[in-house]
């Protein structure tokens, strides 16, 4: 079996495993909102939350790497360096063990979302350098890049830049200036998410391109227009996170103005809905497509929410509330995870298992997952709106009283989390089981997209 054809799959299966472990910690953390004493004297929320956040973040980043590498292997066969990719994978494994051990021993030190001892950022940064070297080795010979290659290139470069920028706080020069430090922190958070979105949307574009069989779309002016608009937002829209921070006005106005260009994405989704419905009808029975379709729905819901939250006058009611959590989780689960699951179903298939038609189990699980996510999203939004009203009210009750009033919504959020955990365990379990089974059978790989012509009839 060719090593390079397998390496993307190894990244995807590692990422999938991290998702399942990370979700388990997420559900455990959600119980603390209902029972404050839950695991208080052992791990506690202080370790459960970063365990959840870091592992699901790694699912997205490592999964995005796996998706890009698998796609590159199809586009430019045997060009990826197996040695570089394997070293990258080993560095990731070292980082994951280090990060988890750091949390279990409560050896914190980093910023929010990257709270582990900063030493473990080194193997991650090094792994990313190797990824970039490998990526550019492959694409440097390609003559004209389709839009998804541009997206992968931008995502890769900007992830590297912002990941390093994320550690500027180690220099007292930055840390001594409270407002600048927080400005940089949220500049990084905004651009990092934009970077992995470029990697994932590129992969989603690649999959759709191959499903439709229309290779011209990847070179169209509209596709490039949307790509540059996304890149522009990645670079400049992050100011919408810090409207309440006493930073310079121009930063807040740039964030506000650039965020409003997202109306163009929103309008595009609305104008193309007829085409989308027709595409859904055409490809509905091709199972991986189902997840791309789901991600489209969640793009619509979360982008509408994001635009509303980006208007400063309305942001006063959503900032620092669970509406923000609903948005963060709605996008990471609804968009990022759905695209990555589609990628797993496409790239982890072989002639041992194709996933072209869903089994009853996978079909039911898919719809339960979407229902669970909707409940999850709604419960957080309602809790967030209630907190938003509280933080703007003239007569505030105590914070702990507010949190007590929100327990029914947190209970719903926990139940929805359990539904997501179960459905993702089933979906991920099926993917991992067949991957191990097929690898053991050592059946010779065939080109990934050969069986899909039937889906476009």
């Amino acid at each position, binding site marked *: 079996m060719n090593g390079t054809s397998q390496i993307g799959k190894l990244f995807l299966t590692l990422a999938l495993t991290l998702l399942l472990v990370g979700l388990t910690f997420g559900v455990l953390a959600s119980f603390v909102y209902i029972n404050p004493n839950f695991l208080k004297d052992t791990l506690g929320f202080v370790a459960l939350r970063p365990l959840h956040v870091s592992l699901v973040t790694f699912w997205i980043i490592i999964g995005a790497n796996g998706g890009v590498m698998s796609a590159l292997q199809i586009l430019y066969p045997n060009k990826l360096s197996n040695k570089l990719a394997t070293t990258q994978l080993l560095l990731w494994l070292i980082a994951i063990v280090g990060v988890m051990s750091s949390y279990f021993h409560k050896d*914190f030190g980093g910023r929010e979302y990257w709270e582990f001892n900063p030493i473990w950022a080194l193997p991650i940064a090094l792994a990313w350098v190797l990824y970039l070297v490998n990526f550019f080795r492959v694409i440097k010979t390609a003559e004209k890049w389709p839009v998804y290659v541009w997206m992968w290139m931008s995502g890769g470069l900007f992830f590297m830049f912002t990941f390093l920028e994320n550690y500027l706080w180690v220099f007292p020069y930055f840390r001594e200036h409270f407002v600048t430090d927080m400005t940089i922190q949220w500049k990084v958070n905004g651009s990092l998410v934009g970077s992995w979105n470029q990697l994932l949307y590129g992969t989603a574009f690649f999959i759709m391109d191959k499903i439709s069989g229309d290779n011209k779309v990847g070179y169209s002016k509209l596709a490039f227009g949307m790509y540059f608009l996304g890149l522009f937002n990645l670079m400049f829209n992050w100011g919408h996170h810090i409207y309440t921070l006493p930073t310079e006005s121009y930063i807040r106005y740039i964030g506000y103005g650039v965020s409003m260009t997202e109306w163009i994405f929103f309008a595009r989704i609305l104008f193309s809905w007829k085409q989308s419905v027709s595409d859904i009808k055409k490809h509905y029975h091709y199972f991986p497509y189902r997840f791309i379709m789901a991600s489209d729905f969640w793009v619509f819901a979360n982008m509408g929410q994001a635009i509303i939250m980006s208007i400063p006058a309305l942001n006063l009611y959503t900032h620092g509330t669970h509406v923000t959590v609903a948005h963060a989780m709605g996008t990471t689960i609804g968009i990022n995870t759905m695209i990555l699951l589609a990628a797993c179903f496409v790239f982890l298939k072989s002639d041992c298992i194709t996933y072209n038609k869903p089994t009853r189990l996978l079909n039911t699980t898919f719809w339960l997952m979407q229902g669970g996510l909707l409940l999850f999203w709604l419960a957080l939004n309602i809790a967030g709106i209630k907190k938003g009203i509280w933080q703007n009210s003239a007569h505030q009750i105590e914070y702990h009283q507010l949190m007590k009033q929100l327990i029914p919504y947190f209970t719903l959020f926990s139940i929805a989390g359990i539904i997501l955990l179960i459905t993702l365990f089933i979906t991920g379990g099926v993917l991992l089981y067949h991957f191990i089974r097929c690898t053991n059978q050592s059946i010779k790989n065939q080109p990934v997209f050969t069986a899909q012509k039937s889906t476009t009839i």
Partner: protein
Amino acid sequence: MRITPTYLFVLLCFGFLVYSFTIYIKPSQQIKTQQFDASIAAEGKLIWQKYNCQSCHQLYGLGGYLGPDLTNVYSRKNETIIKGIIGSGVRSMPAFQIPDDEFTKLLEFLKQADASGNADYRNYNVLPNGMIEMQ
């Protein structure tokens, strides 16, 4: 001139770098204040991260959601109360045994956060263009 993807990409990257470095040079333009010691506050930020306070607490609405926002806790509570809460814990917050030197640094960080502004959303005005501004 024909606008190619490469040209547009380089142009955007240039704008991004200029914007980034405009932000990076801000600390060098800062006027020193007497309200807190910036170098001790910078050490205090490391203590804030060491005990992962951000996991549950926010500053300017940014951070965790389990506990209250601590931007102006320094002016709302006195040092003894802050030390008491940290040392004994409350509800889901465990008791933290923080050495005195670390507590002093953490307190300086909270003093710096408090001096930077007010995080009470009720003090904001909404401008006609939709932007918000502290009263």
